[in-house]
Each structure stands twice: as C-alpha cells, then as structure tokens.
C-alpha cells in the first residue's frame, strides 16, 4: 500500500514547486551573500574581489561596534520587558481574571497585528515635543514634571523604543505563556493550597518552575526576533539622533543602499546571522541545563 504514498512523480509535483522557489529565493542567495562578503561593489557597477578586507573592517569599524552594542542592548531590554510583562499578564489572566479573561486577552493582543510603521509613527507623535506637546509630554507637564525632548537624546529615544516594542508585543507573549500556565494541573495547585501556601508562594515555588519550559521557548523566540529589529527603529527614530539608535540591520541597509557597498553590507548581514544563531544556541543550551537541574 505504501507504493501509492511513495509515488515519486506525485511527490515531485507536490513538493517540487515549493522546493524550487524556496531554493532560488532563499537558499541560493544565502550562499551567494557569503560570496559577496569577499567582494567590493554593487548591482549597478559590478563586483571586484576584495579578499578578507570586509572582515578586517568589521573588526575596526566603530560604527559596527556601536550598532552591535545597540542591537544587544535593545534585544536584552525588549526581551526582558516583553517576557516579564507577558508573564505578569498571563498570571493575571489565569489566576485573577479566570473566565473573564478572554476579552482582555483579545484586546491586549491586538497591537501585535498592527503595522509596525503605523505604530512607530503614532508613538513618535505621542512623545513629540514640537510643534505641539504630544499626550505624553502634556501629561508630564500636567503633573508638574515638565516636558522632555525624547528624540534629541539617544538614551531617551532608546527607552521610547523599548516602551513601544513592549507595548506592541506583550499581548503576544501573554497568550504564549498563558497556554503554558493553563496546562498546569489543578491538583498541583490544589495541594499547594491545602498545604497552606500563600498566593505568592504558590507562584514562586509551583507555577514558576512548572512554566519554565514555555518561558524558555518564549525567551528564544523573543531574542531571535529582537536581534533582527528594523521596522520599529526606522519608523520611530530612523537610527537617530546621529546613529545612537542604529541596530546592525539598519546599518547593513544603509551601507548597502545608501553607500552602495554590497560587499561590506553582506559581511554585516553575515555577522547578524552568526549572532542570532549563536545567541539562540546559547539560550537553548542554558534552558536545557536548567531544566535537568530543576
């Protein structure tokens, strides 16, 4: 009977198109991009060999170091923010809102599907100081703190960016973690209650350890996504002031298309790829070790 399910011609017809398109659009360009990293040039003027010069430049380029540092800082801050906020929301849904949580869950989730460009422009206006105070500065003035020019200073712009991305994604992580929390058996919680554990103790000693696996996978998703941040930065600050909020992705884009240096752009893209693979691997290994211990 397996002869039918092993029909080679049918298999080819079914998977052939997907495999072909995927190979041509994704796999071949990936390898090709590796090759570009050893050249200098662009699509219009052609390419010439450049040896390992692009990689030497990576090591000494201050702008790359700053972009790398910003990327890591951003990834850690947003990951911490969205996983912690998501976890608190999930706890709220499961233990306090219970059956009433469906509506709140749906509501808090919705920024996830909004176009990042729109959200970025909206937050830019909300934190605006000129020509008119946005709602945030208006509120700050109303409580007597005085308005802040959020986007003239790299540090302030960074926090607006973090706040915006946590606002955008916390509902997503809340739903992800919620699914993990709901799976904790009622009997376990019941017996903790009978043993006299307080709500906080139950969360600390029972709920947290039991939801560690789903917390860890959230962490991996989050780190992986945040290292590739592009849309939010472009829409909110466009990397500024100066290049204070320029992540690797944006620096790669500017190098390639503003300065038409595809070779160096490919080298930066490679750095980004290696970075996300290494970080995912590290988080994955850490989570495995913790699990066997716990």
């Amino acid at each position, binding site marked *: 009977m397996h002869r039918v399910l092993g029909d080679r011609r049918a298999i080819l017809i079914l998977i052939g198109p997907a*495999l072909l398109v995927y190979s041509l659009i994704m796999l071949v360009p990936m390898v090709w991009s590796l090759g570009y990293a050893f050249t200098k040039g662009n699509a219009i003027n052609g390419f010439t060999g450049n040896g390992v010069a692009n990689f030497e430049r990576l090591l000494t380029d201050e702008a790359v170091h700053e972009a790398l540092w910003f990327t890591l800082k951003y990834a850690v801050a947003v990951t911490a923010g969205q996983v912690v906020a998501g976890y608190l929301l999930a706890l709220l849904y499961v233990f306090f809102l219970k059956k009433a949580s469906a509506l709140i869950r749906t509501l*808090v989730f919705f920024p*996830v599907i909004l176009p990042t460009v729109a959200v970025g422009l909206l937050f830019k206006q*909300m934190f605006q100081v000129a020509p*008119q105070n946005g709602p945030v500065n208006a509120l700050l003035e109303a409580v007597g703190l005085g308005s802040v020019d959020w986007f003239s200073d790299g540090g302030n712009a960074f926090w607006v960016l973090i706040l915006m991305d946590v606002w955008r994604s916390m509902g997503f992580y809340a739903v992800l973690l919620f699914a993990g929390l709901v799976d904790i058996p009622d009997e376990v919680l019941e017996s903790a209650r009978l043993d006299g554990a307080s709500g906080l103790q139950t969360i600390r000693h029972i709920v947290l350890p039991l939801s560690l696996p789903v917390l860890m996978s959230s962490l991996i998703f989050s780190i992986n996504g945040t290292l590739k941040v592009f849309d939010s930065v472009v829409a909110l600050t466009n990397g500024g002031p100066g290049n204070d909020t320029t992540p690797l992705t944006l620096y790669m884009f500017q190098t390639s298309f503003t300065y038409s240096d595809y070779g160096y752009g490919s080298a930066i893209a490679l750095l980004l790829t290696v970075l996300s693979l290494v970080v995912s691997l590290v988080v994955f290994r850490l989570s495995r070790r913790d699990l066997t211990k716990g």
Partner: protein
Amino acid sequence: MSVGTPEKLSPRALPLRTKPPTRRRLRGLWIKPIVAVLLVVELYPLLWMFLTSLKSNDDYLNNPSWSLPTTWEWGNYTEAWTTGNIGLYVQNSLLAVLPSLALILLMGTAAGFALQIMVWKGRSVTLLLFLAGIMVPAQMILLPLFTVYFQVGLSGTLWPLILTYTGSGLPLTVFMMATYYKTIPREMFEAATLDGAGILRSFWSISVPMVRNAVLTVGLVQFFFIWNDLLIALTFTNNQDLRTIQVGLLNFSGEFGATQYGPLFAAICINVFGTLLIYLFLNQKVMKGLAGGAVKG
C-alpha cells in the same frame, strides 16, 4: 511548536479562594485598577490617533493634543487617500500581497502534504532545509536578490516583491502545514486509493478540505507578515509608484510641503484600521495562528 489553544481555560481553584472574605475583597480592589490601567494603555493611543486624524492643521498646532477636534475634518481622509497617494499604495500592497499569499498557501500546503503524508527517503532532511529559512535574517538574501532582479530587468515592477514574499513565506508555511497534517492518519489516503482515487486527487479533494481551517489560519499569519513588512518593500520599491502602504506611510509627509498632521494621522488610521477590521472578525484564529508560528522571530 504546538501551543495549546487559548480557549481551553479551565475553572481553577484559587489559592486565595478560602481566605477570609476581607482578603478577597481586597484582592478585588487592586485587580480592577490594574485592568483599568491596562485598558487605557491599550486603547488610548488608538483613540488619540483617531481623534487627531479629524483635526485641521491649525487645530492640531494651536490646541492641546488631548483636546477633541474643534471641527471634524473628515476631508483629511480624502486628502490622504488622493493627494497623499495612500489609495495607490494600498492598491500596490494588495497587488503584491494577494498573489504571494495564494502562491505560498498552494505550494506550502502541497509541500506539507508531501513531507508529512507521503513516504520517501530524505523527507526529514528536506523539512530541516525549510526550517533553516525560518532562522536566517532576511538581510542575508536581499543583496543577491536585488542584483539578480536588476540584471533580469524586473526592477521597476512588483515582481521582486511577489517573488521574495513567496520565497520567504514558504518555510514557516511548510513547517506549519506539515504539523497540521500530522493529525490526519495516513490510512485515510490509503483507503481513498482503494476506492480508486489517485494520490494527487486525494491530496486535492480529501486532504485540502480537511485542513481548510489550518490553511485559513496560516494564511492570516502570512497576510500580517507580508502586509506589515517594511524591509523587503523598502529594498525593492525604488520607484515611487511601486510603494506599498508601509513604505508610502513612512515617506508620507514628503507628499506635502510641510507636514499636514490631519492627513498624516488619517493615513496611519487607514493603515491600522484595515488590519484591525480583520482582527475584529477573526481574532481567535489570528491569536492561535501567530502563537503557533512563534518560531519565526
């Protein structure tokens, strides 16, 4: 990555439930403010955006930002749609998104079937090959693709967008469809063959209707990814007439001399309310789908 459905919330014995009534009332007291703050944080930005989209420029510049519009300028929307070219950008987005979506779903479903139901050597390797595409950042493929599209003469059309969206949407779709096909027993298709259906026919007439729901879910996920994409659109739309809604919105103030705040907010609103409308009707599916596709960063 299969994640439990949000719907399976079970009634739960609370650790605090047996505490004296005063404690319980106290708990209720701090939950309500938290939920209220949450609602304000989620909804106020949207409300503010909508109200501001109805203000005239003078109104925006001279009155506090939180005030209501003095006159309701619905004309801002026409202004954004025509003078601001948002109409053209929405059309471009649809022209790029819909063909890509159709191709992704058709090829992805077929590939998922081949990888999960059909029996052949090398299918786990092929699945891994597709998985690699989920992890690698899009920056790795942009430059070679740009060069090829330029040399083949596709620059200046929407084809680079359609092709790139299709290729980059496939890995996640194949992976998710293969996962869905796991729930259908192979015997189903063996039985169909006994009844005389060819395997291609069973794929189309038996398996596709069975995974219809999954196709819709995956389709929604991919729709949001592609519709909201900025990086690929920004790379391949070097011509102003080809801009998608996201690229157009990013460059919006350039369409007028000085920034016209009313039309700018109207343009943001048009962009936001389109996706919001879909979410309003299909939110459970969207939540489930996006949580299931979380492997993509």
